[in-house]
């Protein structure tokens, strides 16, 4: 219990630090939203108009930095993230809502699949080490992982969408449909999302296979595995519940962190497959110096990673009693 409390305290402190850095960073960058807005409207706005819009964005040049900071903390905790410059006049909340579900859906699913598949293959590679499976699979996937992502994505698009016409050219769902909860729509989303998800899985799976395989090999050398074999337990049971369960622990924290980073989006996926999401949104926000949107997205990523790390710690503590503090 005290372990849990300590973890929560640590979480709260890191969250506060993240909020503060998130506030400072965009303001330290050169340029200011007023100027960025001028560019946006192509110089065709009067100075008075700029002041009005600046006020709407919460850029108060009349407030001191400290005042702005507390204003920002208050607003963030209340969920008021401001108005977006790039997507004026929509609020940041509305803009993020549009893309977030798609990112979590696509990239989240792909990451989970990559992790499960990768750890399974890694386990099998380690179990049959020295054999054909081990000699072939990990090297092949590691080589593929080292290809630049966009290259694989474009090749997949060229082969499967353009030449073979098995999958659509892009978008998250058919242009003629609207978002609804029918089975046909779910099927559409799955069909459109297959190629992007496939490319994400193929490029990220190599890392999981390798780490799992290596941890598994050292675990297999442990005494309790030898004991289990001597006891006559089935190989499947040993592989999964004795060796596998211990080997997966280091990977869990990595997995949790990568789940947290899912929110940062996969910008190349979004560009190549024209898929909605927050990755490209972040790029646009940075390019147009859209402080409100930038801050909100950075915050989201930070919070997601922190929550994920916390969850990973708790999970590890639950799975592995050795990590819990004995008070």
């Amino acid at each position, binding site marked *: 219990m005290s372990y849990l409390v300590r973890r929560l305290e640590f979480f709260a402190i890191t969250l506060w630090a993240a909020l503060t850095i998130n506030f400072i960073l965009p303001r330290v960058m050169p340029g200011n939203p007023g100027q960025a807005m*001028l560019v946006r409207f192509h*110089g*065709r706005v009067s100075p008075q108009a700029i002041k009005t819009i600046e006020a709407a964005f919460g850029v108060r040049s009349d407030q001191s930095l400290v005042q702005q900071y507390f204003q920002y903390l208050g607003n963030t905790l209340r969920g008021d993230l401001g108005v977006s410059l790039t*997507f004026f006049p929509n609020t940041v909340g509305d803009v993020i809502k549009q893309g977030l579900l798609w990112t979590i859906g696509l990239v989240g699913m792909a990451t989970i699949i990559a992790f499960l598949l990768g750890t399974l293959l890694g386990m099998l590679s380690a179990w049959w080490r020295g054999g054909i499976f081990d000699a072939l699979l990990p090297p092949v996937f590691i080589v593929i992982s080292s290809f630049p992502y966009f290259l694989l994505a474009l090749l997949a698009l060229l082969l499967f969408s353009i030449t073979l016409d098995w999958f659509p050219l*892009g978008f998250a769902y058919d*242009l003629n449909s609207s978002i609804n909860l029918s089975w046909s729509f779910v099927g559409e989303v799955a069909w459109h999302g297959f190629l992007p998800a496939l490319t994400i899985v193929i490029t990220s799976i190599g890392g999981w296979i390798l780490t799992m395989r290596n941890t598994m090999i050292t675990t297999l050398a442990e005494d309790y595995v030898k004991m289990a074999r001597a006891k006559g337990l089935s190989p499947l049971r040993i592989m999964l519940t004795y060796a596998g369960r211990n080997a997966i622990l280091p990977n869990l924290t990595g997995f949790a962190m990568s789940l947290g980073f899912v929110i940062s989006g996969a910008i190349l996926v979004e560009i190549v497959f024209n898929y*909605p999401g927050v990755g490209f949104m972040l790029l646009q926000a940075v390019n147009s110096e859209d402080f409100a949107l930038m801050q909100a997205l950075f915050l989201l990523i930070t919070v997601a990673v922190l929550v994920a790390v916390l969850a990973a710690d708790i999970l590890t503590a639950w799975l592995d009693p050795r990590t819990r503090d004995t008070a």
Partner: protein
Amino acid sequence: MRHRYPVISLLAALTLLLGACGGSSGNSGTKRTTGGVLTISNESGSLWQCDFNPYNGSVNGQSFGILYEPLVYDNLLNDRKTPWLASAYEWSADSKTLTFTIRPGVQWTDGQAFSAADVVFSFDLIKQHQELDLQSVWTVLDTVKQEGSDKVVMVFKQAAVPNFYQIAGQTAIVPQHIWSAFKDPVTEHVKAPIGTGPFTMSECTPQNITYTRNPNYWQKGLPYLDTVKYPAFLDNDPANTYLATGQAQWGGQFIPNIDTYYVARDKANHHYWFPPIQNVNLWFNVKKAPFDNKLVRQAFAYAIDRGSVSKLGEYGYEPPGNQTGVLSPTFDSWIDKAQAAKYDYKFDPAKAAALLQQAGFTKGSSGIFQDASGKKLSFTIIDIAGYTDWIASVQVVQANLKQVGIELKAQNLESNAYFDKLFTGNFELAFGTVDASPGPSPYYELRNTLHSATTAAVGTTAGGDYGRYVNPAADTLFDQFGATTDEAKQHDLIKQVEAIMLEDVPVIPIVEGVAWYQYSTKDFAGWPTPDDPYAAPAPWNLPDWEVVLTHLYKTA
């Protein structure tokens, strides 16, 4: 001279005729089938916000023209005017009052009648909220009032005839009965637009907007198309792929190697046309030495191989510019070719070197010219990092200048930083266009390039004339142009401006920016072509795209 137009324009009469014949299966001749789904491919760079506010510059590309219409349609390519929501207009003798007769029988898409009151309301709205005045019409307008039941009288502060384009051709008219209820039209997210246009917005998702034919459109029988689809493309490549595979039929895209990538896919039906609409200039900061010296600027004009820049930097898509600053072939009728031939600006390193020597520079041992104190002619030019074709063009210019003996260093900036430096005059040389949109005659671009009223002191933001060039003679010519409706006089004044461009070389037009336009004749006809330029052809030319959409029809 006053202009008068009959109540029913020739265009409307023709469409009435065509509408009466329409409905049968398509064949050659005047019979047009109604129906068809057209898909547009125009990279917007982000998902749709589903905001159809025509006064919001970042989203009006989805509403101005197709949903909300202007008073008069003024063709960007040739300044031919077609009465639209106004059935007639008339200038006063002193060109300071403009009276519009509002077309009767027009309906808003919610069934309410359109009237002159809506016009007055729209202009008053943008007067009250300056952020909505995208065309800065209230810098020249004094009052806009209704007269009688169907006339709108606009009084100008001073004669500004060319502003007709911004006022009548570029201002959207919105319904008073809807917009007067908006709390703040600047931040209003217009989700259900009510307009007078040929289409209504039937569905909007972040990925795609679907427009459906307006059955009560005031041009009877139009449009022919049933549905228009406008997908949101985040980047050029998906948009180009859609065009190449035929899933989109109308494009406004920059496509590298267009002949191999696009035309080859369907040689019979895939076509493109790139009419020039805006110059891409080399800007001198004339407040910085040695660019205050006319001889140096002239030397630069002989030191750049514009044909080479066009071919190597712009794939040959953007024709080389000419020093008069008037677009060719779009505005050929305005160019005084004899005058331009006297200077004969082309790539001539010997002549450039001679001019530099005349200006007092000598070629140093490094091959670069230097002044008496030994300071080399070495300059920085600012450029936008994301525009790969501009970067390539600047590299060609660099090589050209090096041959002559001038050193050029390119600074490829992120767009906000670039515009900041450009607008505030914080540069030595700059590569780029005038930021204000071009107009239907050379006057607009030239005025924004040369008139001292558009510029500002170095350090403050300027709306035009980024090089801070001040020439009272040029100012007078533009002001005189603005006060006259006499076409012959207008042409003469522009020729005098060309003389200034040729002699003073305040900027060097290097290539001519074009309207990117691709179209497929596989299922649709009625496209604008060089032989029939009835509208500026790109889907992002507002409101010209509306005119294209009312012309297109499904073949067989």
